[in-house]
């Protein structure tokens, strides 16, 4: 096994139930080879660097359309990367979660290439809808960039949720699996964000940690997947009705964060000599 090619990961990528052609490409341009390279790195981080604990993985349906909706935690998308890794490494059969990434990533050389070969598409409603109608797994962070911009002392809080994911769940009749990601704030403790400098790169912000760059510390992480929720209503309902559904999902995630944070603290205390 090498850091860039883990045979175990390659075997799991082979078992993904996606319509790959003989070239190992699916209709979105997702490449088995690129997935294996990328997940080989993520797998090492997941198992050896952070040691991620996952609870409730059985709540994620093994097949069919589904939306994973959770909190942002950590100054960069470490949370998304570990959720994706948990879906590939822990699910039976393995699943590829597809996230909606920030538009600026598509402007940057190599980053644009990487996002398109791994199925992490630009955050557009058309992309989200297509992924669900193709019976795939969509990863959504309704806090958006506001969520990853949370500072260290705000790490267990939830900022404002967008409402698009609720209308999308209603229009596509998709179950939502809420999840909480714990520990991202400890891994990348943002003390301030540089907004003006980020504008030069087209990014929403640049997080600054006590060691300046957002390189993650080696800390344990925890992901809690809650029971699936089926929302009832019409995608054409007025904002007030949709906001009530958004709030109900937000409350479920907040409850998962509270439970997860407590268990995380307990397990860390038990680990102390």
């Amino acid at each position, binding site marked *: 096994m090498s850091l860039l090619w883990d045979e175990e990961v390659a075997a799991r990528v082979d078992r993904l139930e996606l319509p790959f052609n003989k070239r190992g490409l699916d209709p979105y341009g997702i490449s088995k080879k690129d997935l294996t390279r990328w997940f080989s790195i993520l797998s090492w981080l997941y198992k050896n660097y952070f040691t991620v604990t996952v609870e409730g993985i059985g709540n994620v349906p093994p097949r069919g359309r589904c939306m994973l909706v959770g909190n942002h935690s950590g100054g960069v998308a470490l949370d998304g990367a570990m959720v994706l890794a948990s879906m590939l490494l822990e699910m039976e059969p393995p699943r590829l979660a597809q996230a909606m990434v920030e*538009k600026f990533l598509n402007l940057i050389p190599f980053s644009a290439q990487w996002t398109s070969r791994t199925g992490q598409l630009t955050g557009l409603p058309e992309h989200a809808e297509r992924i669900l109608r193709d019976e795939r797994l969509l990863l959504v962070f309704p806090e958006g960039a506001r969520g990853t911009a949370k500072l260290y002392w705000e790490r267990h809080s939830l900022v404002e949720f967008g409402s698009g994911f609720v209308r999308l769940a209603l229009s596509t009749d998709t179950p939502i699996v809420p999840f909480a990601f714990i520990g991202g704030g400890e891994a990348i403790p943002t003390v301030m964000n540089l907004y003006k400098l980020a504008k030069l790169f087209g990014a929403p912000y640049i997080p600054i940690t006590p060691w300046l760059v957002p390189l993650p510390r080696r800390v344990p992480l925890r992901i809690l997947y809650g029971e699936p929720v089926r929302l009832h209503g019409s995608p054409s309902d007025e904002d007030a009705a949709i906001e009530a559904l958004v709030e109900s999902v937000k409350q479920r995630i907040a409850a998962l964060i509270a439970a997860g944070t407590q268990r995380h603290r307990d397990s860390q205390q038990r680990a102390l000599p």
Partner: protein
Amino acid sequence: MKVLIPGITGRLARTVATKLHEAGHQVLGIDRRPWLNAPKDIEVFQIDIRKRAAEEVFRKHRPEAVIHMATVTHLTVRNEDRFRINLFGTRAVFDHCAHYGAKRCIFVGRHTYYGAAADSSLYHGEEDPPFAMTTFPELADLVAADLYAGSALWRYPELDTCVLRMCYTLGPSVSGTLATFLKAQRVPMVLGFDPLYQFMHEEDAADAICVSLEKGLRGVYNVAGPQPMPFSNLIRAAGRTPVPVPEIVLKLAFGRFGLPALPPGAVAHLKYPVVIDDSSFRTATGYNNKYDEDQTIAAFRSVAG
């Protein structure tokens, strides 16, 4: 059926004309260029579609169906004439269709209508707006011609208008936008970008146009072939070598070192994909591409080497 094809001497149009002729249709054509060695039963009028003589062809021969392929798509041709042919020529075709009793008119357009941009969706449905004008203003006349053709659906409701937005074609003719780019042994790419490319065999493209005619299709449809593939894979499969070049260098290199003289906007098509969803067309017509990506590339290589 009596079918008139403006732009008949184009590579794809000739294939369409030959297929329709072989299927027993009476085929006529209009083009400024001659078609040497045309099948003897296909009558070609060597005139400009915008001139009175072209109207006389409609008046005298009263075609039941028209397949409009007289648009100039070469990006290296950038002059007033191109804009006038694409816009006024399209207007003339639809006006003549309506005035001289044609029942059907098919406008053969391009999928590049949708444009390539960092924030455009991967798959385009027919309802998507034309983004090409923002990233690639040189395509404005083709976008306008497409929209103008679509407006015939309400301007001439008695005429069955069909707008086809077709992806790149590739095949033994070794002509067209994609083939031109793939001819050289070393094919430049923008460093750090590898967009999906969607292409179809020339024969499949011609079949798709013919089936639209047979089915009397009405409306706007995307037409594609096999699953799209990354540009680097396409270049390698075509037996060429991809040469990644920084964007700024590539823009300066257009028109030099054997590269086509493309406008700077063309770089967007080397960075971002233009991929179309053709499920509506397949459902409406029952069309299925006969050639997969390997067979299509092999057909290109069989002639291009």
